[in-house]
């Protein structure tokens, strides 16, 4: 082994790690270059083999910022979110994305973390009826907004027409992208962007499916559209 490959870990670098979900960004979902660089450093120290020190250091950094004179908000911010018609009060780090607030703080794990960089659409939710990537939006920004997730589409045991159509047409294989696909499709139909297969493909292009279920997704959106009157405006 070459010693140069193993740099001791720099506490300054650890301090920058986000305790709210950034860890899996770096360890699992980050770019290959970021991951390689990070793992190379982690491998150099046995102290880094548990996650405890990361969180501890990050918390210290947060406290320091809290003491900054004139800070407008504290690192733990209270946020009121209205999700699927229900109000939730959260105490969160301002860095928390809407996706992480849903998954890590509210245990609403229907919305999925795919790329975490706005490139795959697995995290798609509706905010005030419009589809967005919840991974690129801070939760704290959404106070007062009406947020709808995949968990809020069905009425009890009665599936939303788009959910039923995805089942009917096998609009998935592994299912990981499906909640995002369905939320996106609900908005796509409401926007009236379903006049042809080509239009559906273009307006659903923000949702990737690595199983390649695209023909069935298009079929599902078409059928759901025929059962859901488009917005007239």
């Amino acid at each position: 082994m070459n010693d140069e490959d193993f740099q001791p870990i720099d506490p300054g670098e650890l301090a920058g790690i986000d305790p709210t979900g950034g860890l899996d960004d770096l360890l699992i979902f980050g770019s290959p270059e970021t991951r390689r660089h990070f793992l190379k450093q982690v491998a150099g120290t046995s102290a880094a083999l548990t996650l405890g020190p990361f969180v501890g250091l990050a918390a210290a950094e947060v406290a320091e910022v809290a003491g900054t004179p004139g800070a407008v908000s504290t690192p733990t911010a209270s946020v009121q979110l209205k999700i699927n018609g229900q109000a939730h009060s959260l105490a969160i780090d301002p860095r928390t994305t809407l996706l992480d607030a849903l998954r890590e703080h509210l245990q609403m794990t229907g919305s999925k973390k795919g790329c975490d960089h706005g490139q795959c659409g697995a995290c798609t939710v509706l905010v005030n009826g419009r589809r967005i990537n919840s991974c690129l939006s801070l939760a704290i920004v959404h106070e007062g907004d009406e947020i709808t997730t995949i968990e809020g589409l069905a009425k009890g045991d009665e599936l939303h027409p788009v959910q039923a159509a995805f089942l009917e047409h096998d609009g998935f294989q592994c299912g990981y992208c499906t909640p995002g696909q369905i939320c996106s499709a609900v908005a796509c139909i409401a926007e009236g962007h379903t006049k042809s297969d080509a239009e559906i493909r273009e307006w659903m292009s923000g949702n990737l499916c690595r199983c390649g279920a695209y023909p069935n997704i298009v079929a599902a959106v078409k059928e759901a559209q025929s059962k859901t009157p488009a917005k007239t405006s």
Partner: protein
Amino acid sequence: MNPFTYSRANDAAGAVTAIAAKPKTKFLGGGTNLIDLMKMGVETPAQLVDITRVPLAQVEELPDGKGVRIGALARNSDVAEHPLIQQRYPLLSQALLAGASPQLRNMATVGGNLMQRTRCYYFYDPAFPQCNKRNPGSGCGALKGYNRIHAILGQSDQCIATNPSDMNVALAALEAVVRVQGPKGEREIPIADFHRLPGSAPNVDTNLKEDELITAVDLPAAPFATRSHYLKMRDRASYAFAIVSVAAAIEIDAGKKITAVRIALGGVAHKPWRAQKAEQQLLGKTADEKTFRAAAEAELAAAKGYAHNSFKIELAKRSIVRALTTVAGMTS
């Protein structure tokens, strides 16, 4: 992501006061680029000022037929679908709809799109030690690295990054004016002067000052509504950045003579590239493919390719010819 303090501004004056109060403060609009860059560790602001509630999202007609004003916080999707834009500036609508995905367009603002940073791999990932844009003086990783998406016009030996925006290319062709507000008041920046070429300071993308807020984009009354087109060449049919793009608009008289023309290129330079050499060649000439090709050759004469992007030079020429052929064939 580094820790930051968060505050909200309710109006433009409040936003400008907040950004002037402390160093390392950034405005947060749609967040589609800034939050991503913060996750990557490229942007590390100490303060974020949320401007999404500042009332600057209107699209409205300017008095006396002077054109249309788009509020800086208007979402890309709302601008693209606005009747005033669709009817008078279809080029802008097409360019906006060619960019990103429906989700991102619902989030992204016009001001944020203007401030979008490059997608150069060496800039976007701090694991690469060399990037003069991210870390001035460190060198350019792309010059001798993998440079397929990089610039062929207006680059320097310090930086060969490109501006990734589609909207900016249409704004360049439409000669938009960016309105900004700072501590000393408001000023206007013509789009041609808004973005910079890299020169010896590639870390500075634009001529917007750090304490200034973009408040609106004005579109002058343009005669090109019926004959304009945005052509985007990319690696997949949708949801990909431009390898090369062309915003073209033309006016032709009864004798097929070109009386007015605007051409801007995307994906080829550090800023949206107004093709003035091509425009000068075309004025007064007959609108046909031979003329278009000659104009494209003139514009790309100074182009320089690198190990992986030389194909862009011919692609840009052909894209110009195709875009002009398309607009010339339109009925006015």
